[in-house]
């Protein structure tokens, strides 16, 4: 096997990975950086983020206000020390992106404009039309080209980590084009591989969002934290699950049921007028809005379409000029994928899985429990999202903590002793032997068969609302699916070069284990909090017993072992989450 010597390997070329790589390069241009990504970086799923990125900028806003919205939005499961750091550093990262060329939308006077987002008290969401993730990703990718010390390994699939003497010493990757393995010896590795939304069938996520980094860390004894908290975005297209940004509602769009009624007023988010106003009705948080859809569906007040039940997202009153200026992508998406021009007709929408709140646990320095391993972005659980992420906090997260990860990993790598090449090689050879064996089986099931059954188990048993019996059934099915997977898949494709069926089989191994972690973590959280909401006897939040992080540890072939860890509270003791209520109409600029 070929090997290369590096100092820091960044796994994942999305926003977090690119920001981390740039931070390493800026910390010390002598450090050898490998940026390993299974797709060319600008294909990463950051590209699909639409609405915007949070950063306090207005005179009527404050870090405290952003902190309160985030902690309350997360139903008090956030680590407040980390949230304090986060809100204090968002704005400078947004400014940094501006200095690197990000085309933030502007006001007439030339200053950066900000829009409303759900659960945010004040306009603090920086946006680049409704292609914010796309522009952030391309800005970061293009900026990374200025740094010769960042060596890209585009379309290299990260297969495993090398851990020796209790610390990370390398990354084993497959060169997708040839199918050859490569050992990247390193002193530190930063995992930035995104979420695991593809555990579910109906999701807004790209096909690559299969939780690889989480799965790899998990197999090396790192727990996965708070995985029961999956976010359903309330407005995705039926069928495909394609995202229709919250920025629509931030700009004044409304949600109506089959009777044209703004149903959110029946679920503690009203009254509907005056409209718009922050943290009420359509500007409530995502967990509440997705739950309200479920109730409307139960009541028979949603609209039946060939692709499932929907409600209407109505933008028409915003007018063609505003829609085209601020929401061009969703206009194009609605026309292409739903056959609807939002200027003249409402868009059919329904909830779909969108975001993985949990992940690889790390502290505010992005250090994970495994020495030399750092994590940033959606794959991580740094502690800012709690039980429900607020829209526009995740794009801010990838740059704020991507930078921290790069700086910390750089510092660590400079002090770390040289690794043991011989041991690393032996481990890498074992990884190769294990994965190449997947290619040789003459009997077994198809990748798609197991994948589709996993989707069904998760959608049925661990959905927007959960009951013990449903979750138990999902756990049992997932254990069987893991067993079937373990007995081996049969691949049509036995070649090494660009064998994407083989890669899908490896990815499926990660997603199956993550699915089981989600289901088991959900079953054992006997309360309702944020995005984890139960319909059985545990309908209420239970701070006495569950103001805690779930930690799921791998046990091999069996279900994960669950432990619980305290949540850091600095200045905001748990309160009731309140949205809606009376308020003044806000002028949207």
């Amino acid at each position, binding site marked *: 096997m070929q090997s290369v010597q590096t100092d820091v390997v960044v796994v994942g070329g999305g926003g977090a990975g690119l920001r981390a790589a740039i931070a390493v390069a800026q910390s010390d241009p002598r450090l050898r950086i490998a940026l390993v990504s299974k*797709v*060319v970086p*600008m*294909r*990463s*799923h950051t*590209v*699909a983020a639409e609405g915007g990125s949070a950063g306090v900028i207005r005179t009527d806003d404050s870090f405290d206000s952003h902190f309160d919205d985030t902690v309350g939005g997360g139903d008090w499961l956030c680590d407040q020390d980390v949230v304090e750091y986060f809100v204090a550093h968002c704005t*400078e990262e947004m*400014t*940094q992106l*501006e*200095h*690197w*060329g990000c*085309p*933030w*939308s*502007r*006001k*007439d*006077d*030339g*200053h950066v404009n900000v829009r409303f987002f759900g659960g945010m008290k004040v306009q603090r969401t920086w946006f680049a039309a409704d*292609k914010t993730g*796309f*522009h952030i990703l*391309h800005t970061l990718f*293009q*900026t990374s*080209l*200025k740094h010769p010390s960042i060596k890209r390994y*585009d379309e290299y699939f990260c297969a495993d980590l090398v851990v020796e003497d209790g610390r990370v010493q390398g990354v084993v990757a497959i060169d997708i*084009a040839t199918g050859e393995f490569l050992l990247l010896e390193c002193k530190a590795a930063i995992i930035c591989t995104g979420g695991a939304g593809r555990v579910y069938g109906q999701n807004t996520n*790209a*096909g*690559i969002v299969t939780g690889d980094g989480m799965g790899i860390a998990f197999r090396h004894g790192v727990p996965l934290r708070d995985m029961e908290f999956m976010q359903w975005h309330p407005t995705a297209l039926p*069928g*495909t699950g*394609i*995202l229709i940004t919250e920025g629509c509602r931030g700009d004044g769009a409304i949600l109506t049921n089959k009777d044209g009624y703004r149903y959110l007023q029946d679920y503690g988010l009203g009254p509907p007028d005056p409209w718009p106003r922050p943290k009420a009705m359509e500007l409530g948080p995502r967990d509440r809005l997705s739950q309200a859809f479920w109730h409307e569906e139960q009541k028979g007040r949603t609209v039946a379409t*060939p*692709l499932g039940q929907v409600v209407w997202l109505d933008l028409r009153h915003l007018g063609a000029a505003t829609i085209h200026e601020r929401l061009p992508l969703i206009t*194009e*998406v609605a026309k*292409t*994928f739903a056959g609807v021009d939002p200027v003249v007709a409402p868009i059919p929408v329904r909830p779909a899985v969108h975001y993985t709140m949990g992940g690889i646990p790390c502290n505010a320095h992005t250090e994970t429990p495994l020495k030399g391993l750092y994590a940033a972005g959606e794959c991580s659980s740094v502690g800012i999202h709690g039980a429900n992420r607020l829209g526009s906090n995740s794009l801010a997260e990838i740059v704020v903590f991507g930078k921290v990860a790069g700086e910390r990993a750089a510092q660590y790598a400079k002090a770390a002793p040289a690794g043991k090449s011989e041991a690393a090689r032996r481990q890498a050879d074992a990884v190769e032997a294990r994965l190449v064996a997947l290619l040789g089986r003459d009997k077994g099931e*198809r*990748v*798609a068969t197991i994948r589709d059954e996993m989707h069904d188990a998760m959608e049925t048993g661990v959905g927007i609302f959960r009951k013990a019996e449903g979750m138990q059934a999902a756990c049992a099915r997932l254990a069987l699916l893991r067993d079937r997977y373990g007995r081996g898949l049969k*691949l*049509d*494709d036995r*070649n*090494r*070069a*660009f*064998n*994407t*069926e083989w890669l899908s089989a490896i990815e499926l191994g990660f997603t199956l284990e993550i699915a089981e972690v989600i289901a088991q973590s959900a079953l054992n959280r006997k309360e309702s909090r944020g995005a984890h909401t139960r319909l059985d006897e545990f309908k209420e939040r239970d701070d006495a017993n569950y103001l805690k992080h779930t930690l799921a540890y791998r046990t091999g072939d069996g279900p994960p072992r669950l432990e619980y860890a305290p949540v850091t509270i600095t200045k905001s003791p748990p309160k009731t989450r309140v949205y809606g209520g009376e308020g003044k109409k806000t002028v949207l600029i």
Partner: protein
Amino acid sequence: MAEPRTIEIEVLRYNPEKDAEPHFQTFKVPFTHDTSVLQGLQHIKDHLDGSLTFRWSCRMAICGSCGKMVNGKPELSCHTFLRDYYPGKVRIEPLNHFPVLRDLVIDQTDFFNQKLPAVKPYLLPKEDKPLSAGTHLQTPKEYHSYYQYSQCINCLLCYAACPQYGLNPKFTGPAALALLHRYNADSRDRGWQERAEVLNSEEGVWGCTLVGYCSEVCPKGVDPAHAINQNKVKSTMDYFGVLKFLMPRGGS
């Protein structure tokens, strides 16, 4: 009309480990009104032949992964629909003008590792402004002078469309030149001189013969042909030394 219907998808197959020559293979695929060409390919891979190889990711026309030739035209397969080809066949091939790695997968390293970095597609500001000084001011007018060219998703459809790139792979090509223009036209940027050599070379704007098919196939309305041809005027002025003298920003 009763759904699902069935369409024939004819796909170019090429496996360098086994095949001396590429060949076509036909699959019968069920589809409904909403089924994209990409979903048709995914159906083949999931259920009929797992060895069919193609790139895809976001399936919403923003990541740029899934460009293919669809009945001879460069398209993003995720926002091209099988219904529009029925009852005829639909023929899928890899993007024109690129080496083929396998089946529908092209070798795109020429663009990502050579052409794109060569145009310095990043902000080269006149002076380093500290973060504490805040953001630059940029009026909506200044913003709109480059914004269209920042929409490029690097899908490479324009290279598959460009007859000049087909004839001369050294031609910098539509997407890279549009991105060059995107930064030159940005009011925050002062890097036009650093980009001038690439721009003015024979492989730069002068490689373009004004066919304009690049702009026609662009799924994001970037209009690279317009970007290139605006720069032919500037390149001429630059040749005669007019730009440096008259316009500190290169006339963007």
